[in-house]
Structure formats: C-alpha cells, structure tokens
C-alpha cells in the first residue's frame, strides 16, 4: 500500500503534498474560495452541506494530481469522522421546530455522513466501494483501510462538527 498524494484542510490552511496553498478566507468562506479558484464549473457545490463541500474540495485537489504513473481515477472512497453529519443534522432540525413543520428535502438528504462519499463518487464517476465510518481515532480507520480490498482509494478523515468547525486529512492510496 503506498500513499501517492495527501491533503490537510483546516479552517485556515490547506496543505497539499506538504506545500501550503495560500488562502485569503477562513472557515466556510475558505471552502467557497477554493471552489472558485480550483473548480468553478460545478454549481451543485452550492447545494452541498459543509461536510460534503469539505470532502468535495479535498477530493478535487487530490485527484487533480498526477497519479504516480497511473492516470486512472481511484475506485474507492473510504472516509471517517467522530461526529457523523451532526452540523447538517442540527441545521435540518432547526427547520422543523415546534409549530413550524416544513421539512426541507434538500437539507434532509445531507443528514447522513456517507452523502459526501456519494458526492465524490458522482463527481469523479467512482463506481467502486464508498464507505463511511464513525470512529474515535484515525488509527482505527487505518486498520479498516488495510483490510479493505481496492486498487486505489481516496481515504481519510473528513469532519465538520459545527459551523466553521471542520477538518479533513485525505490521501490517495494505491495497492499495486
């Protein structure tokens, strides 16, 4: 198993393969800034919740990198975090407060953590495995990844626990 590229996104920094990407904004505005600079042609981005935007941007930046002599896209997406989809869950709950019962299907679909894996799969045409785990530590995820059969995967930690509170550390991994 070899890691070909990695990215770390905090609320104020982006580091791709060890090199910082200079950003002007912080928090959720930073994700929009990254979208405008590096993507720009996928308006569905603006429908996504923060967790999906985070995973989507991380995947965009990672999968644009040359795949170490192999140009085929990854075939699996394996992500994890501790708090599932809690930020969007709370946003959704806020729309169905007592006496104001008008649930939004557009928000409801994002009340599952694996939706971000689906967004990445749709964007990049990945028809292999997509899995989302809720774990205490990234070490647990490493053990699961090592036991999962795939040729190449986008894998790692992707978490948004509250407004402007998120963290992603993703890698592309090859098994051949």
């Amino acid at each position, binding site marked *: 198993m070899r890691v070909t590229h990695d990215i770390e996104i905090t609320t104020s920094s982006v580091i791709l393969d060890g090199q910082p990407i200079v950003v002007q904004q912080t928090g959720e505005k930073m994700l929009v800034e990254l979208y405008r600079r590096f993507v720009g042609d996928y308006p569905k981005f603006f429908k996504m919740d923060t967790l999906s935007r985070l995973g989507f941007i991380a995947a965009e930046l990672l999968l644009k990198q040359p795949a170490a002599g192999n140009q085929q896209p990854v075939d699996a997406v394996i992500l994890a975090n501790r708090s599932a989809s809690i930020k969007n869950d*709370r946003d959704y709950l806020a729309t169905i407060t007592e006496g104001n*019962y008008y649930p939004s299907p557009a928000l409801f679909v994002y009340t599952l953590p694996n939706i971000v*894996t689906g967004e990445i*799969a749709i964007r990049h045409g990945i*028809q292999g495995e997509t899995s989302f785990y809720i*774990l205490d530590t990234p070490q647990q995820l490493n053990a*699961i990844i090592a*036991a999962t059969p795939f040729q190449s995967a986008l894998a790692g930690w992707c978490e948004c626990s509250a407004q402007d509170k998120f963290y992603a550390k993703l890698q592309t991994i090859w098994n051949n």
Partner: protein
Amino acid sequence: MVYCIGHSIISPLGEGSQANVEAVQAGRSGLRLYHNRFADVEPFCASLFDTPQEFVPLCICSVTCALNDSQIAALPETIFILSTTKGDNLDLLTPAQAIVQHFGNPNPPVVVSNACTSGVCAQITAKRLLEAGLYKHAIVIGCDIQTRFIVSGFQAFKALSPEPCRPFSPDRQGLNLGEAAATIIYTAEPQPGGWKLVAGSIHNDANHLSAPSRTGEGAYRCLTDVMAGMQPADIDLLGVHGTATPYNDAMERTAIERAGLQDVPVSALKPFFGHTMGAAGVVETIIGMEILKHGTFVKMLSGFGGVNAAIRLTCE
C-alpha cells in the same frame, strides 16, 4: 469466510430471533397507523415499539440475547461493530462506546454509517477485520429508533406509504419506517455446520444522491461480485431491499435481471418490520438464514448517497 455463531432480533414483533421468525411465518406485521406519536408530524404507518425505547439499552438487550445464543462472552478479542443511521439522538459514537463499556470490552467500537446499506456493510466490515486476523469474534449490531427527525424527512421526500407497504407490487405507494435492534455474532474460528458469510461487496451508482440508478449499476455490480464462481441456480433465496418505493423496486428488478437472478425466489420483509434503517440489513439477514435453514442466501440493500451492498451466506 466467517461463521455465524449467534443472533437476535428485538422488534415490535417480539424478543429474540425465534419470536420474530414465528411472527413472520404466521403473517403478523408490526405495521400500524400512528396519529400522535410525534408532535406536528402527519399520521404515518410504521412498525414502532409500543413503549418508546432508548437506543443504548435496546442494543444491550439485543447483544445479551445473541450472546446467550452463542455461548461466548464479549471477550477482549471481540470487536463491536454498530450499524446505525441516527444513533442516539444524532450521536453515533457515544452510544457505541457505552455499549462496549457495558460489556467490559476493551476495543474501541466501529460504527458503520452507510445509509440504508449499513447493516450489510457492517457484516462486510466484520468479515474483513476477522479475516485480517485483527479479532477472533465480531458482534454486529444494527439499530435505529424512529424520531420526528426521520419521519419528517421521509415525509418531505414523499416516500412514505399511507398503508402497509407492498414491495414489488405494481400499485406500491412507498415505504413504512420501523424500529428494531438486531445482532449477529461472527467468529473467525471454523464451525461445524451453521451459516457462513462467504462474500460481500459494496458499490456506488455514481449517479444520484437520493434516486436509485435506472440501470441498477451499483446493485448489479454487487450481485456480480458476490456471485463470482456461482450459477444463478446455486442461489436458494435473494433477500431484496424492497422498500416499496416505485424507484427502488424498479432499480432492484433491473439489477436482478442483469445479474441473471430473475428465477431465484425473492424475499422482501419490509411489510413485517418496516424499514428499520441501520437495523434492516441485520434483521433481514437473520430472517433469511432462519427461514431458509440451509442453502445459499444473497442479501442486497441500497441507500442514499448512491451506495449499494450485497453479501452471500451459505449453510450446508
């Protein structure tokens, strides 16, 4: 290959796998109409516990029941794998940790949250971790309890049937939600006889977040994977997802036909249990194993996020 050494279902139909199998065989359904279960929510048809249950005690009850069945204790070489979509009031990790703590197990639990496929995916995760030699036993728990949160969301999607659901019927009107906790215990130690989990596969449609693929691409690929080396005639029972929404059942039919499995007997259990979400894959695997008794059983599920999963189990 991993070996099933115990299971349990706690549902509105009864406590223990046997009680639930008997209810299904007798044609009893847990579905009924609820008018005032949750504030503001329109009346809906579902299979709910008479007394609202708490998530962690319900899971503990299910695991205790399965452990009695399997004659093993929750030993240090055992991993707990929880399948749930909404956990305990939107928290998935803390309840899993509470369950593990209750049984005095030292290993941090794994929670699988892969939408409606979670219960099958959790069994696949169990198989992988056991086959990798990381643990000897895996306790797979599937559980969800219904809340205003979930019911309102499915109502927003207009996915709920006002009547008991009718999977694969031309006049099907949608799904019913349900509550259950179910547990399957797998071991890496070869067992004489009994059910074995032989193959598992997970694929994304890469098509749409909430609508199934028209070509059933992900489900078809899962079926092809778990059928490797097998003929359609080798399969005795195919447990479908069968939510009874127009699109899901049409997609499954397409995937089943593409995989050449159209002559295999099919079971769809949502008319008995409703859609128990994180529990569905575990409940429906147990009922399939119990009703078939021996032979080869394939269980498939699909869910939001475009994810599909299938497993193949066999009992000689």
